């Protein structure tokens, strides 16, 4: 597998130069990973998309992880032209899980944010059509949360 760790330094530094509050995470999985304050998310996304030397035009994946004390939302970005990757990460409160939507930056966020809303219960403010996507509307709870368990079936 290719190892773009060498590019991690300059790429992260470029983002941090514009947004000093963005932190570099020390978890290394081949993609530089940045922790972004929730309120700066949309600005950072707009910045990395429109800056020519970053040029992140492709939102490969959005996911959320339940850590029991918080929920992390992870954005995997890529530049198809410059061939580099970046991961942005925000931490949201578990009981009041609200995050800004990035559908205005990349349309690909539309379905993926709906999926996270559906399965993990994070509300994305500014999303044009935020409703359940895989489960039915009457479904109770958000199954990918760690405290959600399949209701036990009565034994015969």
């Amino acid at each position: 597998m290719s190892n773009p760790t060498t590019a991690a330094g300059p790429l992260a530094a470029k983002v941090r130069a514009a947004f000093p509050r963005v932190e570099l995470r020390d978890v290394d999985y081949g993609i530089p990973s940045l922790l972004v304050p929730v309120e700066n998310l949309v600005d950072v996304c707009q910045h990395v998309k429109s800056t020519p030397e970053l040029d992140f035009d492709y939102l490969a994946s959005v996911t959320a992880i339940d850590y029991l004390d918080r929920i992390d939302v992870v954005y995997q970005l890529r530049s198809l032209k410059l061939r580099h990757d970046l991961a942005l990460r925000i931490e949201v409160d578990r009981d009041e899980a609200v995050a800004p939507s990035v559908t205005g930056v990349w349309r690909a966020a539309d379905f993926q944010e709906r999926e996270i809303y559906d399965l993990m219960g994070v509300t994305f403010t500014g999303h044009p059509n935020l409703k359940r996507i895989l489960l039915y509307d009457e479904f109770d709870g958000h199954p990918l949360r760690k405290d959600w368990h399949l209701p036990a079936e009565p034994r015969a």
Partner: protein
Amino acid sequence: MSIDPRAVVDPPTEPLNEETEQIVVNMGPQHPSTHGVFRMILTLSGETIVKAEIVMGYLHRGVEKQCEEGTFVHNITATDRLDYLSAMSNNLAFSMAAEALAGIEVPERAWYIRTIVCELQRLASHCVAIGTFGADVGTFFTPLSYAFRDRERILDMFNMICGARMTVSYVRPGGVALDLPEEFIPACRYFLDLYPQKVDEYETLLTKNEIFKARSVGIGILPPEKALSYAVSGPSLRASGIGYDLRKDQPYGIYDRFDFEVQTATGCDCFSRYIVRIREMRESAKIIKQALDHLPPGPHTAKLSRNFRAPEGEAFSRIEAPKGELGFYMVGDGSIAPYRCKIRAPSFINLGPLHEMLLGWKVADAVAILGSLDIVLGEVDR
């Protein structure tokens, strides 16, 4: 009054013809052309689509939640059932994420075998894609049966190497489940020698077919900038003129050792998405031949405990699956199961621009446009 679909951005607010009342048609979830249980709510003015809403989830099984319960090896069987037309590729993407997380080295022979089976899987998946797409647009069952005839040979080979045709569970963390049997290599070479002729046959039946062209050329335009914004991947992206292929641009495994071309088309329409698949079939056959020529001896898998543990950490694997970019984002917590296993399913994300692509086309074209995107609902709904 006719409208140019390329000019349509928002659905027209008024009916195109004063006398025609808009009607809402539920296409699916039980409809043969939706390739499974997929539903489009189409608002029609006459026969023209003025609004489309996409509804999915009828096949949702909670695979991501299930993956948190099973061990890494258990979960391989769950991945077979995602895109059930390309189980080998799903196995590979999952295994790569588990290997990256647990720091497992894969022997070279295993990588060659993986490449061979995954490219065979691409041929099989594209056979279904072009065959059913032909059936969708009115060539009916002739091309379909030719494509399925050859897919059958590939599934026979899978049966030969692992005893299963579709739910193979063959690629595992650390390598592959079993070494290739002796009879596989001559069978595969025989198949590859004949294969270019088979692709020529599909082309005779489809590429030069007037009816097929009338139903696919210029239909369902996906402009490159829209494809990029919606993160469309795979043949659908390359048919919009963007030559991005993970096998070339972020080579994983041993793809940097093979000589092949990334196929693109610039039509952005249904026909381009079809022709890119046809060309990719020829390229995949080349890759398999090269891999067979250089297949090294050695172990087919790393020595590994069945219930190996992965340390705390994260991994994001991505491969060029037949349908597009398949990714697994995996978080480990030191146990024998992943803490979180997110599946970046290409079929799901490729559906993003569909509601815009349908605007301005007739109902019959909706079938063609959906068919050209080549989705599998097992992967869309997970």
